[in-house]
């Protein structure tokens, strides 16, 4: 056992200096398209179709819906005029209806994670929150296997049909006060799967969403930012778009 202790000590501290300082190591975040800044010319930036509708032209302006972006990079690679892109990872959006979301929990947050049909990348990034590079324990955040102890539910995936019951039961098993965080494009908007016969268009159809973290998958730092917003230690990037409403259709059985 002592060998492991020595090995651990020898490795030194690799943990990010975020949130005290910024983190700009290469490869920590894929970035996201951003809205036009005043004075920038939208021009023909949309000579292509954004496959998930994250970018749209409205009255000559470029509108970005971050929760839909799946990082396909088609708007920046091999196009005449690339869409404006921003690095960074502080993308958290919160519900803004007067209810208390930022600073909902003051000190520590216990987190229950549920995979409602994700591709595995979001789950992997959540796992990495516990690796020494991010180490959320130092900030008072803990992943717990049981919803009974959890303050916060992290949901990934578009919500598949088979996971609906499990998702609802997990949510119901949590004590109040509780908050729900949608991680990634699928959980926010259905992502590449979208609303279909076995997939939903995000978790807003099933549970009340308080916080969303855009990205496909959002890098660990983006999720960490969301946790800090909930703990009142960082500000959210934006308010949640009101368009996050149910879009489910039904049809007669064939």
């Amino acid at each position, binding site marked *: 056992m002592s060998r492991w202790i020595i090995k651990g000590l020898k490795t030194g501290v690799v943990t990010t200096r975020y949130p005290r300082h910024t983190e700009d190591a290469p490869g920590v975040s894929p970035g996201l398209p951003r809205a036009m800044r005043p004075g920038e010319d939208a021009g023909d930036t949309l000579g292509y179709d954004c496959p998930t509708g994250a970018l749209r032209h409205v009255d000559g302006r470029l509108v970005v819906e971050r929760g839909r972006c799946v990082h396909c990079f088609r708007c920046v690679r091999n196009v005449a005029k690339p869409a404006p892109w921003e690095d960074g990872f502080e993308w958290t959006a919160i519900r803004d209806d007067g209810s208390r979301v930022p600073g909902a929990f003051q000190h520590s947050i216990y987190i229950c994670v549920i995979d409602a049909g994700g591709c595995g990348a*979001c789950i992997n990034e959540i796992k990495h929150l516990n690796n020494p590079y991010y180490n959320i324990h130092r900030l008072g955040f803990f992943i717990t296997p049981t919803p009974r102890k959890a303050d916060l539910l992290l949901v990934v995936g578009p919500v598949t*049909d088979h996971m609906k019951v499990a998702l609802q039961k997990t949510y119901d098993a949590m004590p109040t006060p509780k908050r729900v965080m949608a991680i990634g494009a699928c959980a926010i908007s259905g992502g590449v799967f979208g609303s279909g016969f076995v997939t939903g268009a995000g978790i807003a159809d099933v549970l009340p969403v308080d916080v969303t973290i855009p990205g496909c998958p959002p890098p660990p730092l983006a999720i960490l930012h969301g946790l800090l917003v909930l703990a009142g230690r960082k500000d959210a990037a934006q308010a949640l778009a009101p368009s996050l409403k149910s879009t489910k259709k039904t049809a007669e059985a064939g």
Partner: protein
Amino acid sequence: MDIEELMSQARSMFPGAIERVVHSGKGGAEIQCRREALQRLCDWLFNQKNYHFSGLIVEEHPHNWQLRYLFTGPEILLVKTGAPLEEATFPSISEAVHAADWHEREAEDLYGLTFEGHPLLGDFILHDNAWQEGIAPMRNGFNPEVALANRLPNREWRPRRILTAPGAFIMPIGPVFGGATESVHFQLETTGEEVIRAFPRLFFKYRGVEKLAEGRKIDEALLLAERFAGNTAFAHALAFCLAVEQLADIKAPGRARILRIFFAELERLRHHLGVIAGICNSTGLVVAASQVAILEEEALRLAGGLAGHRYLFGLTVPGGLSLDMNDQACREVAVNAQDIIRRLDGIKNTLINTSSFMDRLEEVGMVTRDQARGFGLAGPVARASDYCNDLRRIQPYSGYESFDFKVPCETEGDGYARLRLFLAEAAQSARIMEQAVAALPPGAVFAPCEATAGQALAGVEAPCGGMWNWLRLDEYGTLERYHFLTPSFSNWHGFHLAVEYFTFQDFPIILATFGLSVAENDR
């Protein structure tokens, strides 16, 4: 043996069974077989000729069914049979070819086909406690855009029980369990200490990706191919692109082909590091898990820094890559990968001297070679049981034939053999990356790719094992049928073999040594 000789043998053994043989490129053939003779021919190929069974591809055409059974070995054989639409009954081959068991269950659940002689059909992908039988969502005419109304689930559904010993019970685990895990449910039958029968109940994450892909353009389907299993996204996207390039009858430019190998190996390295970290974590060896997780994070950052995305999304496209790389940056990544392997070696040396860790892996979760072959296991899990199948070697693609690398193989088939295999393959990946940057030619990374109507089958060795993509394109450039044959599907099929007759404490460790992806299985 070439196909001519194989077919003449088959013709003499099963007179009248084979109606037609169509040769395809790269030493493959499509063998049209009469429905009545299907069982015997498949039995012969699998049990006498030792072909690996890779999967079943079902297609519904306007007037008939077409079923293709994929056998791979030195040649790629598609045994094809058919029937008019109204005769949706086929003989089950799974008694002789056990690897076909789950494939037939899938076809029954999604297409409503019947396989005569199959012991257990129904309640597979669409759970019976959520959906009634007979929905068959993959049938033409089923609208995938809207949720099905008139749901009549079977409220009486109960888990299957085999164990009748006094005090026997089912220990349910999941679908939500243990921190951040993918959703899967296990029913473990036990009388107390030992897991005597294990049923993994999968498809909680069934997203109907194959159905969603139908009717979509290639560009849109690429997003699905890439993102249905994000941890191995590059390999899946590559298989899709190779299939499309077959239809366009082009090859990606040389530079793109080498870079694809470079990134595929970077992904394999990162995936294996994740599995190794998971194994350390499952035994409670937190320092080791953290040490390996550091390496995994570094591999993710290497990918993110070079290609713009930590999981390499959006990188490969039909015709090449979406982005050219700087040679020097690639060299640095290859050097960093070697550094990761060097540090991994240090961790490995400490691990094998940690007896509390080794006790949990050695002679735990054994899978024999016969079992691995019978269940059609793929990838590192199969190779740890001395069943060596690596598409990079037996069906080289994208230029792997010019690389010098080993396909590690182990004989014990226990948890430790699987750990050694993941370690050895990670080292080989770094070696291939080094060779790739040395061989990197100048030039374009993209060539225009105009796919024409037709069918294509492309395989790549994904990190979890060989995976095949079947593609049928119509004349308007939209997908008529898209089918994945994924390694996780076969490996989940055989997973229960490893956990049965071991104790509950061993279960999470065996699960970790399999390195299974739920998303890749569920689709």
